[in-house]
């Protein structure tokens, strides 16, 4: 998409001036961004002076303090973004902006840049104030943790802003947007608490993992926000919620009716199915390598428990157990696909692959493969097909289009898996019978 940076900058400049021009809001934000770090830093210094010196616990609390100090201004980004998108929409100023030759991407980028600039200025301002008050003279400075905090803050703010844009596409009023914003602020506060817990238990190295996850989340949300920010989505009128239940029922029935079946489905979803299939050998290699890295005392109890739970004396009940287990795995993969952005679709084949690889490492490839044949000849393709459809569900969940239709596409993807289960389930039953009656005899 072509983007005129000067025009995006023009929008950003106007929004920045508008936000900064609200003196009461600007003073409140700047005040809190100053007062809270000073108070928190002073508290840490008081702990050092009156609590018996710079203990390990005080050091960790000082780092946790930095996370909380940054979180507050970061949460302003949500307020500013909602105001910039939903507020403008409510006051009809967005309609005027959209009636100009500006591209949606220029308006989107300009607005996001403006909110990011203000929020990050406040976040890093607060962090600098906190560090200035807290650390001088203490004899330590947790640079690595603070850098990871800085990176994850940028991504956190970007994720919140992008989330707010997605909210704005689905909320007509600020009141509705504020309620929907809970879906953004709650997960973010959970992330903050987990980060704080990690610091307190001395596992600060995991913070980089959080920063990376935040970066991925922010990129996905920004892409979704850009996809969903369209004149059509923002200005089309709602026709009300009359007969909502009936409409939902019709939508589900329609999705199920329209979902392709059989070979047509396989052709349509060939790419994700192949991706899921490729996860099997990748999992096998990782499982093989893991056998060298994982000590036997860690892996053995897990594998023994797995074998115990699957070991049924009676072949009929074993077949039933295997069938129920495989079906449940596919159902869970499908249900969780939309919230894991399709990761469960890869896991559906990668985990069995990892088990085979691990078994091969501790015995031999021929022995490990014998253990999954001939049932694996059916189970693995079935898992790859179901996994591919789960990957497609995840992709639908993170894809927005200017014309809207997110719910319809997600429902359609879920209907494809549900419809495919009609013929995948019998195949799983055959595989389970093979596993119970034939495989043990080979």
């Amino acid at each position, binding site marked *: 998409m072509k983007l005129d940076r000067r025009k995006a900058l023009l929008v950003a400049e106007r929004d920045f001036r508008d936000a900064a021009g*609200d003196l009461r809001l600007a003073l409140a934000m700047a005040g809190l961004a100053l007062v809270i770090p000073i108070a928190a830093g002073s508290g840490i210094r008081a702990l050092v002076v009156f609590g018996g010196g710079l203990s390990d616990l005080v050091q960790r609390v000082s780092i946790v303090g930095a996370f909380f100090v940054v979180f507050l201004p970061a949460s302003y980004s949500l307020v500013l973004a909602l105001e910039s998108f939903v507020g403008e929409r409510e006051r009809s100023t967005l309609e*005027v902006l959209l*009636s100009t*030759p500006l591209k949606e991407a220029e308006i989107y980028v300009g607005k996001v840049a403006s909110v990011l600039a203000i929020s990050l200025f406040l976040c890093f301002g607060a962090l600098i104030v906190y560090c200035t008050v807290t650390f001088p003279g203490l004899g330590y400075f947790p640079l690595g943790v603070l850098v990871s905090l800085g990176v994850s803050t940028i991504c956190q703010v970007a994720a919140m802003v992008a989330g707010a844009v997605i909210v704005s596409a689905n909320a007509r009023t600020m009141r509705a947007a504020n309620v929907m914003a809970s879906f953004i602020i709650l997960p973010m506060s959970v992330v903050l608490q987990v980060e704080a817990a990690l610091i307190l238990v001395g596992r600060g190295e995991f913070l980089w993992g959080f920063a990376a996850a935040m970066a991925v989340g922010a990129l996905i949300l920004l892409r979704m926000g850009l996809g969903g920010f369209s004149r059509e989505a923002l200005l089309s009128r709602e026709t009300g919620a009359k007969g909502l239940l009936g409409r939902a029922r019709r939508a589900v029935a329609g999705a199920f009716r329209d979902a392709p079946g059989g070979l047509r489905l396989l052709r349509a979803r060939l790419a994700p199915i192949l991706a899921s299939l490729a996860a099997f050998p990748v999992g096998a290699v990782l499982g093989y390598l893991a056998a060298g890295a994982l000590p036997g005392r860690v892996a053995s109890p897990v594998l023994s428990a797995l074998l115990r739970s699957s070991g049924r004396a009676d072949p009929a009940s074993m077949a039933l157990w295997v069938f129920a287990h495989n079906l449940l795995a596919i159902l869970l993969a499908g249900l969780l696909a939309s919230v894991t952005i399709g990761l469960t679709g890869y896991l559906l084949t990668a985990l069995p692959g990892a088990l085979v690889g691990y078994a091969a490492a501790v015995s031999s490839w021929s022995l490990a493969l014998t253990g999954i044949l001939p049932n694996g000849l059916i189970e693995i393709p079935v898992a790859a097909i179901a996994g591919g459809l789960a990957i497609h569900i995840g992709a639908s969940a993170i894809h927005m289009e200017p014309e809207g239709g997110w719910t319809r596409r997600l429902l359609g993807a879920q209907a494809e898996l549900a419809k495919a289960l009609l013929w995948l389930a019998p195949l799983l039953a055959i595989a389970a019978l093979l596993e119970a009656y034939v495989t043990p005899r080979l």
Partner: protein
Amino acid sequence: MLQVYRLAKRYGEVWAIRDVSLRLEAGSTLVLLGQNGAGKTTALRCLSGLLLPTSGRVLVGGKDSRLEPDAVREQIGLVPEVPGLYDRMPARSYLDFFGRVYGLDPGTRARRIERLLELFDLAEAGDRWLGSFSKGMRQKVALIRATLHRPPLVLADEPTSALDPDSAHVAWRYLEELRAEGAALVVCTHNMAEAQQLAGEIGIMSAGRLLAVGELPELVRAAGLKKHREVVERPTLEEVYLAIVGNGVEHEARPA
């Protein structure tokens, strides 16, 4: 300048406009009349490239709103029903911002802004925040903003509804000036007297359909009023409107 072929727009399961066709040459005016919910605002949004048609085509200056939406919007000045101004911006800065959005050079921007602020009696208030402006003043600013880049097509949704008679007169005179310079005007209004005075052509909308379009004498004929009253006096636009909407059937005043 404007060609509309069988335009239709649906929101969910509701058709806001259906089968609207019309044609407007440069330097001419079309007044759209219709009760609330008739589809006038949706029609303007589709004509301005804000919304994509569910079916049908809109061509502005030969450009298709679906294929070249940016090029279409460059040729349009939209005065929406709600002025939609930034309250925490002075009028001059606000107009300057939109001048920059439309790519006007600094000299042209400054010249046009000052001239139009003078024309609409806003020069003194030009440095005040727009939030302090009265409803009428806001509507004037919206009109200036929409026409600052001298668009060849002006779409105005009740542009004088909040103006006092003097200001309304200035606004109509200004629109007339734009028309005389070659701009095509599409104006939605409820004010029959203004419509009658302004209109070259009049379109009557009801329940999302364009029931009739044509000049007043054509509409009078289409409404079937002339045979009753041609000798006594000419029917008013209001009578024509009520007759056409009251019948609820489409009249072929002139092929749209």
